[in-house]
């Protein structure tokens, strides 16, 4: 049984290019140009999935993305769950299976590439049907930058599934000539297989382009499989067409039941007959085309049930000519069949909104049409207002967008002439006179259609048996009525109660029908009830596509320091500090982290060690108001700092809480350079600019980030003086000549450097600052000069141990947004002389005067081998009491001190400074561990070591 439902000729598939694929383990063949759905139907395969709740067999219900039921899983070449068979373009080697409502994700990384492109245009046209093509062509001829996106494999939209004629020629010839002309315009971007899935603010739209799947094995493996186009449009033309709407009746979910126009599309676009014996159930004229075309192609149309009492002579004649039994005033009241529809019950509508006795006819295909819903999804996402049109039973755009318009069927204008005219006039409206001049008139013979009936659900549906509203969610009329019975009145509430519209088809066939059924049940109008909100994405989009290239090494910027490559070749382990990649420690062969850190700490305490501290934020502050600005920003006095000297400083917010700390050096009278913590570099600069630009514009100061201009290398340890002396022979490095908290300009390896005597370790230390260009030259010179002293490179872990041993807090680790300088034991850094500075007034607030505020203290585990967990809670009792346990605070930093031969921690503890010497407890794995509260300084309490 291969392609036995394929017509002998016709369709847009390429019969020269057969493709092999597997479905549910069975090999099949199709043609290039097929979708998985059309290829399965060509092979007579209708029963392709099963439903999520009831396990009922389900088939292809529609030929496009509105299909609620043909849900499949791609198994090979790479697993991809929950796709609609009607939207998967067939390719050679495809292996897929039907899903029972849920799929499975790959357990291996997706090897395909995904990327994004930004694009700007005057006119974004969504949909390459007659309206869209007409708009795009008019725009292109007017010289505009145009983007035309369309989800199908070729342009044409509804024309692909019909037999329309434009200007006396087959419509597809017109399509071909339009696309050829569009190709000639360099500023027209025409993308097929590209679905606009979301409209956002300010003319921004996203489209997903499928680029390689259809090429199968011929695709370049490096090429982008899917691309997200980020399109910013001056004007948006929504030419997205319309979705045919079903009518709900009993057992309306069997494979072989299909929207009428979809069956016509399968015939004309793919050369596929969706069945052999068909019944049409319709409420409108449009569906007759499907019945007539299928009949002409050899399908037996057993009957047409039209819910209207009368139909036009043209349609009556058409039926008579083809021997089709036409039942006006009739509906389909049910179906039967095993894995597929086998018979259809046709019954008369009676006057009192009931149905009469049904007549059962044998059929393997049931075509359904309840009218058309304009595809207003994007229009509505773009904040376009909708109105309910009683005549067609659908929501249509009520207005133009500020910068856009729905056209053609998407606007509820279903005729071909309307579509062509709409598209061109939208482009003209967007672009003005040049485009107006480019509008072309076309000769089209639209049939005059009689009014449609609006019928949501066949009377009596669901009273016995099941009548499905949302096939994907297995939700029935009874579910809707139960929701209404439970008191729900809003369509949004009913949606969430019933889950209708929450499947991957997002209720394209069920949404408006649900509103209709609720309206009937409540006895209100559909207009006042409305329809649920349309939200992006219009069709499912894989997270991989949204992530694009922001994965792996490109997930987030990795900021590198000037010595990164050197550290890499030295076998350093790295840690992430924000976006920075910093050397964490430098293990020797076979050395553990603890071993390496202990060795690095020893070198800094006993000999000499050096590190790359370049990540520190650095801000150049210049101008006559520089000293005044710093006085207002820092808690301590900076304007009194002498040129040539450095000072530690703390910044607070207006609430008095510490936000950052660092050092300030004065380079000249009106010129300072300050450092910030690594993580706060950007925010400190931005905050300082905020004060300067918005509150104190009278201060003449310029703030400039120089973070990456300066590489910063602390050279630390008792022997650091000898290393600096060797590097800079003419510099007097004696303590008297070059004292603590002073700086000198010098030259190392022929390169200008600035050396600052500051210490984040308590040891004698020199911070060498050099322009990034020369960083490695100076770094190597330091290494060379230090070699006789065994100079040791160290990383951030050792830096942390050294600073914690001295009780130096890290803002952001040992503090959060609730710590004042006083809480940190740093009253000394708060000026009493200055009348005001940011945060000062808050220190005297009652809340900040409380004695039981959390204060920074040291904790010494009474078992010196126990390393407390950072984040561990501090409690008062040796036994873990019943919850709620009173928490005194928590551990903020915890390390082994190689120097002191014990573990230690910093912690914030309620009233901590009054508890020095007390025993408190930190639960570890449920057991409280005793700790002694100490002051924050573990090592060199006298501060004797900083001068060497």
């Amino acid at each position, binding site marked *: 049984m291969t392609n036995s439902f394929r017509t002998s000729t016709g369709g847009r598939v390429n019969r020269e290019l057969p493709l092999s694929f597997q479905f549910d383990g069975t090999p099949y063949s199709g043609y290039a140009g097929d979708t998985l759905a059309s290829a399965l139907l060509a092979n007579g395969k209708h029963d392709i999935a099963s439903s999520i709740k009831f396990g009922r067999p389900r088939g292809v219900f529609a030929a496009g993305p509105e299909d609620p039921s043909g849900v499949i899983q791609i198994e090979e070449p790479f697993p991809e769950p929950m796709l609609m068979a009607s939207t998967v373009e067939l390719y050679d080697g495809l292996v897929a299976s039907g899903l029972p409502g849920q799929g499975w994700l790959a357990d291996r990384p997706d090897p395909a590439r995904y990327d994004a492109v930004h694009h700007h245009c005057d006119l974004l046209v969504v949909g390459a049907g007659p309206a869209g093509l007409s708009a795009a062509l008019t725009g292109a001829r007017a010289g505009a930058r145009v983007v035309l996106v369309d989800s199908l494999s070729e342009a044409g939209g509804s024309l692909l599934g019909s037999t329309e004629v434009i200007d006396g020629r087959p419509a597809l010839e017109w399509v071909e000539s339009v696309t050829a002309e569009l190709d000639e315009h360099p500023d027209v971007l025409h993308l097929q297989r590209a679905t606009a899935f979301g409209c*956002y*603010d*300010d003319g*921004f739209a996203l489209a997903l382009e499928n680029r390689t799947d259809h090429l199968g094995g011929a695709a370049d493996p490096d090429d982008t499989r899917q691309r997200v186009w*980020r399109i910013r449009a001056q004007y948006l033309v929504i030419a997205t067409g319309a979705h045919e709407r079903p009518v709900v009746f009993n057992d309306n979910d069997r494979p072989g039941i299909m929207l009428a126009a979809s069956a016509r599309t399968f015939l004309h676009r793919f050369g596929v007959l969706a069945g052999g014996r068909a019944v049409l159930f319709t409420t409108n004229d449009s569906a007759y085309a499907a019945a007539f075309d299928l009949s002409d192609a050899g399908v037996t149309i057993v009957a047409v049930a039209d819910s209207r009492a009368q139909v036009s002579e043209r349609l009556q004649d058409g039926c008579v000519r083809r021997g089709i039994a036409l039942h006006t005033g009739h509906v389909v009241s049910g179906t039967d069949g095993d894995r597929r529809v086998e018979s259809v019950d046709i019954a008369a509508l009676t006057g009192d909104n009931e149905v009469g006795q049904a007549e059962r006819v044998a059929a393997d295909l049931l075509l359904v049409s309840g009218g058309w819903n304009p595809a207003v999804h994007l229009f509505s996402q773009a904040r376009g207002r909708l109105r309910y049109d009683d005549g067609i039973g659908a929501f249509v755009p009520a207005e133009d967008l500020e910068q856009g318009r729905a056209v053609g069927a998407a606007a509820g204008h279903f005729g071909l002439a309307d579509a062509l005219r709409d598209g061109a006039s939208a482009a003209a409206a967007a672009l003005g006179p040049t485009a107006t001049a480019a509008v072309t008139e076309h000769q089209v013979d639209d049939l005059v259609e009689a009014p449609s009936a609006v019928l949501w659900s066949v009377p009596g549906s669901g009273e016995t048996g099941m009548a499905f509203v949302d096939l994907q969610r297995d939700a029935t009329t009874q579910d809707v009525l139960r929701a209404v019975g439970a008191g729900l009145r809003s369509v949004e509430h009913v949606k969430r109660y019933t889950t209708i519209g929450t499947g991957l088809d997002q209720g394209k066939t069920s949404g408006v029908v649900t509103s209709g059924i609720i309206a009937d049940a409540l006895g209100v109008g559909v207009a006042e009830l409305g329809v649920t909100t349309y939200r992006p994405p219009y069709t499912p989009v894989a997270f991989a596509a949204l992530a694009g290239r922001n994965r792996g090494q490109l997930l987030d910027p990795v900021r590198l320091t000037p010595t990164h490559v050197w550290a890499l070749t030295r076998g350093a382990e790295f840690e992430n500090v924000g976006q920075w990649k910093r050397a964490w420690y430098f293990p020797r062969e076979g050395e553990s982290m603890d071993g390496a850190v202990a060795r690095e700490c020893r070198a800094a305490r006993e000999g000499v060690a050096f590190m790359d501290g370049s990540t520190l934020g650095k801000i150049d502050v210049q101008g006559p108001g520089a000293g005044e600005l710093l006085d207002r920003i820092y808690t301590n006095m900076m304007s009194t700092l002498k040129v040539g000297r450095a000072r530690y400083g703390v910044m607070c917010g*207006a*609430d008095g809480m510490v936000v950052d700390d660092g050092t300030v050096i004065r380079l000249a009278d009106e010129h300072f350079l300050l450092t910030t913590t690594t993580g706060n570099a*950007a925010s400190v600069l*931005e905050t300082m*600019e*905020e004060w300067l*630009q*918005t*509150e104190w*514009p009278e201060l003449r100061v310029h703030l400039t980030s120089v973070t990456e201009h300066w590489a910063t290398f602390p050279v630390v340890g008792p022997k650091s003086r000898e290393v600096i002396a060797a590097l800079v022979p003419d510099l007097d490095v004696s303590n008297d000549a070059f004292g603590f908290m002073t700086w000198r300009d010098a030259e190392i390896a022929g390169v200008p450097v600035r050396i600052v005597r500051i210490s984040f370790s308590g040891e004698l230390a020199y911070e060498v600052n050099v322009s990034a260009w020369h960083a490695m030259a100076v770094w190597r010179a330091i290494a060379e000069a230090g070699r006789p002293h065994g100079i040791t490179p160290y990383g951030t872990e050792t830096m942390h141990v050294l600073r914690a041993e001295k009780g130096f807090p890290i803002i952001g680790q040992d503090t959060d947004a609730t710590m004042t300088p006083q809480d940190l034991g740093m009253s000394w850094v708060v000026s009493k002389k200055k*009348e*005001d500075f940011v945060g*000062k*007034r*808050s220190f*005297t*607030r*009652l809340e900040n005067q409380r004695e039981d505020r959390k204060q920074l203290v040291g904790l010494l585990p009474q078992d010196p081998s126990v390393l407390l967990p950072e984040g561990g809670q501090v409690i008062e009792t040796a036994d873990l009491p019943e919850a709620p346990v009173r928490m005194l605070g928590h551990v903020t930093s915890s390390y082994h001190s190689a120097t002191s031969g014990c573990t230690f921690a910093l912690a914030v503890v309620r009233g901590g400074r009054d508890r020095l010497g007390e025993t408190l407890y930190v639960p570890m794995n449920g057991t409280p561990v005793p700790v002694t509260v100490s002051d924050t300084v573990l090592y060199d309490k006298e501060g004797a070591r900083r001068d060497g």
Partner: protein
Amino acid sequence: MQLIPCPWCGPREEVEFHYGGQAHVAYPAAPADLSDREWAEYVFFRDNPKGLFAERWVHSTGCRRWFNAIRDTGTHDFRAVYRPNEPKPVIS
């Protein structure tokens, strides 16, 4: 992705900007003279209207300038932007 009009650089994607809260909350001339209550009003209390709201924004990725904006908090529309030295525009 919304566009925010920087008074200097023109419309840019919203990710280039940072938010600075309510505008025109001036730093008190003499904080020391304020009661705790008055100081708390300055530090902690801000308006939270549905509708037009004057806010501070900064074009972080661009010119690093702080500016003021009148934004409709209900629709996110930026109704006006103005530089710090310009008066608050009157918008109905």
